[in-house]
């Protein structure tokens, strides 16, 4: 898979590729353009320039639904659930494009998800609108997996969740990765993201400021600097302003 990319102001000339079975992560502070990147891979946002190819096919003209049909599936940042539908409905809808396979295949797929995320099994009849934040995140993950993705994109799965719940979700990601899932993980929580990914990219204000194997990035001072670093460039300008 090759993905090369370049769009406007939010993201500028980012190029990368993901190999089958690999998990890469994009880390960086808010506003770095991570979510924008995923949204344009998903076809929700139009990219201004550059190209994205998936299994050798150019994606540019494809609507989000068509990308799902090709195996690119997202766990969106805002989860985008259906508040009035049950957990199990969400999972079934995740497999909407695979509905031709019949009842048995659907049941088997549901069982696999309940095994990976047992809490969803307990809550299968509950409406998504009444779930806690962590449970909603699991529904979003489960729904995406039901589509049998070839490329799973996770957008800030830890946002707003308690550490214990985050841990549960990342354990599930660990297991998926062990099963050979290809993925792009966008995360603000750098340590967490680098603990599961093979490779990492550090984004800051729309461009990649550092990249490399996840192990090496963990101790790279540029990572910390990207989040809460510096201030000197603007302190200097102070005198002239007043």
């Amino acid at each position: 898979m090759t993905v090369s990319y370049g769009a406007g102001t939010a993201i500028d000339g980012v190029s990368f590729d993901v190999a089958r079975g690999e998990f890469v992560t994009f880390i960086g502070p808010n506003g770095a353009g991570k979510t924008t990147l995923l949204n344009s891979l998903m076809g929700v946002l139009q990219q201004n320039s550059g190209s994205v190819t998936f299994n050798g096919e150019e994606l540019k003209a494809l609507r989000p639904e068509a990308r799902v049909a090709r195996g690119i599936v997202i766990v969106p940042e805002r989860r985008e659930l259906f508040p009035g539908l049950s957990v199990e409905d969400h999972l079934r809808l995740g497999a909407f494009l695979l509905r031709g396979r019949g009842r048995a295949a659907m049941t088997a797929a549901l069982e696999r998800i309940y095994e990976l995320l047992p809490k969803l099994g307990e809550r299968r009849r509950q409406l998504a609108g009444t779930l806690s934040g962590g449970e909603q995140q699991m529904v979003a993950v489960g729904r995406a997996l039901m589509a049998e993705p070839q490329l799973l994109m996770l957008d800030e799965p830890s946002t707003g969740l308690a550490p214990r719940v985050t841990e549960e979700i990342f354990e599930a990601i660990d297991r998926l990765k062990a099963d050979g899932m290809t993925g792009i993980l966008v995360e603000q929580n750098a340590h967490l993201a680098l603990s599961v990914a093979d490779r990492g990219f550090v984004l800051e204000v729309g461009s990649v400021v550092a990249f490399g194997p996840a192990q090496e990035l963990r101790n790279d001072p540029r990572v910390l600097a990207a989040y809460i670093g510096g201030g000197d460039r603007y302190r200097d300008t102070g005198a002239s302003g007043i």
Partner: protein
Amino acid sequence: MPIRGMLAIAVSAVFLTAPWVLPSFYVGIFAYAGIYALVAIGLVLLLQAGQISLGQGAFMGLGAYGSALVARAYGVDTLVTLVLSVSATALVAALIGFVTLRLRGHYLPLATLAYGIALVSVFTAWHDVTGGASGLDKIPPLSLFGFALTDDRLYSQLIWAIVLLAVLGMSRLRASRTGRAIATLESYDGMARSFGVDTTVLRIKVFVFSAVLAALAGGLYVHMLRFVSPSPFSLMTSFKVLIMAVVGGPLSAAGGVIGALTLESAQWALQDILARWGATGNLEVIVFGIILVVMLLKWPLGLWPAVERFLPKPAGRSSDGEGLARTVMKEDRQAVLLRLQGIGIRFGGLQALDAVDMELRRGEFVGLIGPNGAGKTTLFSIISGLLHPTNGSVLLSNEKLPASHSIVRRGMARTFQHVQLVPELTVIENVALGAYWRTQAGFLRGLFALDNAENQRVLATARLALERVGLSAEAELATASLPLGKQRIVEIARALAADPQILLLDEPAAGLRFSEKLTLVRVLRQLQAEHVTILLVEHDMELVMGCVERLVVLDRGRIIAEGAPSEVQANPAVIAAYLGGSRDKAA
């Protein structure tokens, strides 16, 4: 005199002499076109405010029946009855507006539709008074101070004089304080309220104005025809006027006139053709319906832009002279301007904020930071009154936070994370919105151009605000033509025009180039020197760390650290919040 003004005078002269030169058959058609144009102009204003009425025919009917019945039964002077019935219609419209305009979205069209049908069925049913479906004749003619207007040509001229005055008034209004506020109503309700516009009341005013024009048109119609019956005020008329407004386009009152002339001519032509084919009934509605759909799909701005392309650009109103007086502030670190106590808010299952306490003292420059989903934007919305917390209280200068449209009056102004500039307004007009609360000129003063001196001071204030942020060269440009970075700076200029004591900045540097960020920092430093209190939410840590005196760090809805930038940068809790703690089973 500008070319545009001379053209307007020339066109007006043509319209006013036309009734005297047209063949007599066309004089009537021309007069009808003028009556519908008046109603369409009202709808154009309503469209500009992002609303729509499907019952303008009924307002016409109310104006018509009110004036006709009273004049006929009691022999009251028709000028008096016309004024009375228009006023009564305004009251009815205010009531309908009050009921529906507090609700969002699609209720006004439905309510006006229902009201329109109800009213016309009353005209038909109340036989004893209205003459029922067959109507009443012997309606007295319109009399102007004892002079009865019975001459068709003179009457047609009067109608068009009123239409031209309405167009003139609307173009004045468009450039006034109220006109700028009306432009925000379609998509920028929250922004408008944060600069002091009571959007609900303004929506009702716009709706009432459109009803007044319709009622006036109805009155003129009935005293011209001197016969009144329900059918001219049916739904069909409401729809026809709607098509006129859409065909002419919502950009200008002149669009209403163009639409009325186009559609009236089309109707006469179509009926002529259909009659030749031997078709009976109102088959022209098929074509009208298609015109309406096609216009909206292909040319949603109507015909007016095609006309305006050939006109010179309108001259902006003068922004010379002094701006409004600015509040002089003294540094006083003892004075707490803003105090948050135990703020908590829940969305569904999510506790977005929990027990947040915070203070802003006069002259302070405070940064609010935190990872994604920490609750910064939510807290900002609470401080600016757009969200109400489940627990806790916000005190502004030791008083409870007022309704969102009154906050700016208490000295707090803000910018928005997603730029909220009105594309229909120029840069300087957008900035002038900031000074809305500092001036008074209302709807009528705008309409009759009685606001010139005040408006000039407002525009001067806006120009000075633009100068302070280094954008005076861009003042007269279309807002959408600016790059995003400059648009964000315009947002700051608008907040400055509000003369704030507290300035809330929601990610002002997002998408800015480095040079633009330097400008931003310079502006912020200058404001700090003027003792403006600033609360900054920003993701560019480089910028935040370099500017602010004090940082407040939010994580998962709670404050986890507070202090000078260097302290916060070294705080392990903050580092953990941003980078995440290590996992137990770290790989």
